[in-house]
C-alpha cells in the first residue's frame, strides 16, 4: 500500500535533514520521495504527522528475545511487538540463546521466524567461539553468509588471551566486526553491583571498576595487534571511556555503545535492594554516569542500546545477588534517549542519530536513514506527549523495569516496517 506521511518534522541525521518534510512511500515499501510528492503519486493512505517527529525506524544493537530456550520469559512474537511499540524496526540479538547461534541454521531460523511475524527485523549476532566456550573459533564466515552482522562471545568471557587474539585475527581477515563485553571474570567474581559506597553500605559483593578496565586494556592491546574492527558493548565506567577515547585518537578502529539506563541510573538507585536495578555491567557511581553522558555528547560513544532482557516476575523476586540481572528496555529505549534532549545534554538530531544512523554505521548497514530509495522503516513520535510507564501498559512479556511509574515525555504513535504500518496508537493493525 502506498503511503504518504505529511505535516511532520523529518529528522534524518544521515541525510542532514531536520525540517518539515513530507514523505512518500511506494507500494513496494521504499521511500520514493522526500518533500514533494512525485507526479501522479496517489497515496492509498495518508498519515497526518502534524506536531510529530518523523525519523528512521530505530535500530537496537542489543536485545534479548529469549527464543529459543527461555520461552518462559518471553517469545520472539511478544518482544518483536514490544519493539515496534517502541519505534524499533531493527533488532540485533546476541548469540547466547539456547542453543547458541553458532550454526548457520540457527541464524537463519531466527531471521525467518522474525520475517514470519512481520514486525521488526532481526539481525542476529554470531558466536565468536563455538558454544561461547572461549576455546574454539566458530564458523564465522558461514555465519556471516547466513546473515550474522557481527560476532561476539556475549557475556561469556574469553579468558584465554591467545584464543581471543586468534578470534580477532580470523574476524579481521574476513572484515567481520567483533563486539566485546570486556569484563575480567576473576575481578568480577560473584559481584552483583558496583564496588563502591553502596556495596560497602549494603554488604553486597561488588564488581570493581578494574574488572572493566583490565579487560578493556587487554582487548585494546589485541585490537591494536590485529586491527580488527571492534566495538565495546555497554561501557560502564569513566576510566574505560577514557581508554577507548584515547584509542580512538590513536586511530584504532573501535566504537562503543552504552545502555540507555546507564545514562540515567547509578548505584544509588539500588536503594534497599531494588532488584530492578540489578544489571550487568552494574550501575556505577555518579561520576561514572556523568562521564558516560559526556562521552555520548562528545561522540566517543556513538550508539545507545536497550540491552533488553525481559524476565518472568520470579527472576526478580529474590535477594539482590540471587536475582537475575537485566531490564526490560525496549519500551524505554526512545524515551530515555529523548530525556537526554530534554535535559539539554544533546540536540534532537544527535539523539536520533544515536539510535539510527550510528548503529547502522557500526554494523556497516545501509539502514538508519530515509533517503530516496531507502527501505521505508520509519518511526513517528509525538515529542511532547506525556505518559507514565506502567506494568499493565507494557507490551513486552517482561515487566522488569526500574522505570515503572516514571513519567516520560515523547511517545511513539506509528511504526512502519518496509512500508507497512505495524504499530499505530497502541494497536498492531497487522498482527493477531
Amino acid at each position: 500500500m502506498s503511503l504518504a506521511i505529511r505535516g511532520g518534522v523529518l529528522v534524518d541525521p544521515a541525510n542532514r535533514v531536520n525540517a518539515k518534510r513530507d514523505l512518500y512511500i511506494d507500494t513496494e515499501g521504499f521511500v520514493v520521495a522526500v518533500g514533494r510528492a512525485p507526479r501522479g503519486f496517489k497515496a492509498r493512505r495518508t498519515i497526518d504527522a502534524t506536531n510529530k517527529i518523523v525519523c528512521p525506524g530505530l535500530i537496537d544493537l542489543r536485545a534479548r528475545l529469549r527464543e529459543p530456550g527461555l520461552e518462559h520469559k518471553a517469545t520472539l512474537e511478544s518482544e518483536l511487538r514490544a519493539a515496534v511499540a517502541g519505534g524499533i524496526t531493527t533488532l540485533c540479538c546476541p548469540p547466547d540463546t539456547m542453543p547458541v547461534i553458532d550454526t548457520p541454521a540457527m541464524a537463519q531460523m531466527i531471521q525467518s521466524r522474525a520475517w514470519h511475524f512481520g514486525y521488526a527485523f532481526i539481525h542476529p549476532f554470531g558466536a565468536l567461539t563455538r558454544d561461547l566456550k572461549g576455546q574454539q573459533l566458530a564458523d564465522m564466515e558461514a555465519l556471516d553468509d547466513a546473515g550474522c552482522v557481527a560476532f561476539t562471545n556475549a557475556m561469556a568471557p574469553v579468558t584465554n588471551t591467545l584464543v581471543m587474539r586468534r578470534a580477532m585475527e580470523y574476524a579481521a581477515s574476513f572484515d567481520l566486526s567483533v563486539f566485546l563485553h570486556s569484563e575480567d571474570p576473576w575481578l568480577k567474581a560473584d559481584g552483583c553491583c558496583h564496588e563502591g559506597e553502596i556495596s560497602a553500605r549494603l554488604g553486597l559483593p561488588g564488581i570493581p571498576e578494574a574488572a572493566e578496565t583490565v579487560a578493556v586494556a587487554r582487548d585494546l592491546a589485541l585490537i591494536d595487534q590485529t586491527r580488527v574492527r571492534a566495538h565495546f558493548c555497554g561501557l560502564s565506567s569513566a576510566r574505560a571511556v577514557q581508554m577507548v577515547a584515547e584509542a580512538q585518537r590513536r586511530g584504532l578502529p573501535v566504537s562503543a555503545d552504552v545502555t540507555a539506563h546507564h545514562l540515567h541510573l547509578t548505584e544509588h538507585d539500588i536503594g534497599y535492594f531494588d532488584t530492578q536495578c540489578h544489571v550487568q555491567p552494574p550501575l556505577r557511581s555518579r561520576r561514572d554516569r556523568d562521564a558516560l553522558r559526556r562521552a555520548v555528547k562528545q561522540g566517543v560513544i556513538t550508539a545507545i542500546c536497550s540491552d533488553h532482557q525481559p524476565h518472568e516476575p520470579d527472576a526478580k523476586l529474590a535477594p539482590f545477588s540471587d536475582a537475575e540481572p537485566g531490564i526490560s528496555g525496549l519500551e524505554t529505549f526512545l524515551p530515555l534517549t529523548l530525556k537526554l534532549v530534554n535535559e539539554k545534554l544533546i540536540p534532537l538530531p544527535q539523539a536520533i542519530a544515536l539510535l539510527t544512523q550510528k548503529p547502522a554505521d557500526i554494523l556497516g548497514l545501509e539502514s538508519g536513514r530515509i533517503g530516496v530509495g531507502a527501505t521505508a522503516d520509519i518511526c513517528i513520535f509525538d515529542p511532547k506527549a506525556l505518559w507514565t510507564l506502567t506494568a499493565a501498559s507494557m507490551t513486552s512479556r517482561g515487566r522488569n523495569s526500574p522505570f515503572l511509574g516514571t513519567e516520560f515525555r515523547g511517545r511513539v504513535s506509528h511504526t512502519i516496517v518496509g512500508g507497512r504500518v505495524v504499530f499505530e496508537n497502541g494497536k498492531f493493525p497487522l498482527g493477531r
Partner: protein
Amino acid sequence: MRPDLQFDNNGRLKHFLTIDGLSRQTILQILDTAKSFISVGQREIKKVPLLRGKTVVNLFFESSTRTRTTFEIAAKRLSADVINLNVATSSASKGETLLDTVRNLEAMHTDLFVVRHNRAGAAHLIAAHVPPHVRIINAGDGAHAHPTQAMLDVFTIREAKGDLRKLKVAIVGDIQHSRVARSQIRALKALGVPEIRVVAPRTLLPTAIERLGVVAYTDMRAGLDGVDVVMMLRLQLERMSGALIPSEQEYFNLYGLTPEKLACAKADAIVLHPGPMNRGLEIDSAVADGPQSVILPQVTNGIAVRMAIMAIIMGGGTAETQPRRPEAAA
C-alpha cells in the same frame, strides 16, 4: 525510592530490618525498654504476658544455634509460642523460592518471623511481601545487617560507659564480610559516637568504607590508641582460602587482641565480641576472660534487647511522634 519498609503509616516501627533509618530517639527508647526487661530476667518468674497467644517462627536459612536460642528464650519470656525452622535442610534446598517458603508458613498463622539468611536483602524482600499484620526481625542477612546484635552491643556499652557521645570506639576484624560491623557502625553513628575506627588489613576493608563515616586503620596499635571501646569481630576460617589473609598465625600477630595490644587503649576500655570466639585467632584468652571483657554481659543483655525489640514491633511500635494515648485504663 520506596518509603522505609520498617515503619507503618503512623510512623511506628513494625519491622526490625536495619539500624539504617532509625532515629537516635527510637534507638534510645529501645534501649530503655530493654533495661526494664533486664529486671524480668532477674525475677523468679522470668516471663511477662505481652506476647501471649502469639506465634514466633525462627526462620533460619543459615544455621546458628546461639542466635536462634537467644531469640527463642526472648520470645518465650514474652509468653509467645516459638517454632524453630532450620530451612537450610528442608524446603529451600528442594528449590522452593524464598517467598514461597514464607507464604507456606504464613498460612500457619505466624505473627512474627525472625529471619536469618546468607543473602543481603533477604529480610527486606520478605518484609515487602508479607501481609500487613506479620512482623519481621532481621537476625542477619548476608553481609548487610545484624541489627539486634548492634543493639545489644550499644546497650552493653551504655551500661558500662554511659553517654556514647563522649566515646572513641574501634571495630577490629573482617569488616568486609561482617553484617555485625555494618550494623554497629550505623548504631554508633546514630547515637552520636564522635570517633568510630575500623581496623583490618586492606583485604578485609570494604572499598569506600570511609563514606560510612569511619576512619580506617591497618595498624592495630594505632587504631586502638586511646579508645574507650574495643569491638572484636569473628574471623571466619574460610578467609584464608580466599586469598584474603595468609595464615592464622599472621592474623593473630597483627590483628589478634592480646593484653599488650589492649594496653594501647584506655586503661578502663571495655572489650566486646559477638561470639562465638576463636580464642587465639582474633582474641587472646587472657583478654576474653579478663576484667575488661563484657562478653558475658553481652549475652544476657542480648535476651533483654531482643525481648524489647519483639515487644515494640508486635505492639505497634514506639511512635516517632507520640500518638495521643487514650485514657490509660486505671
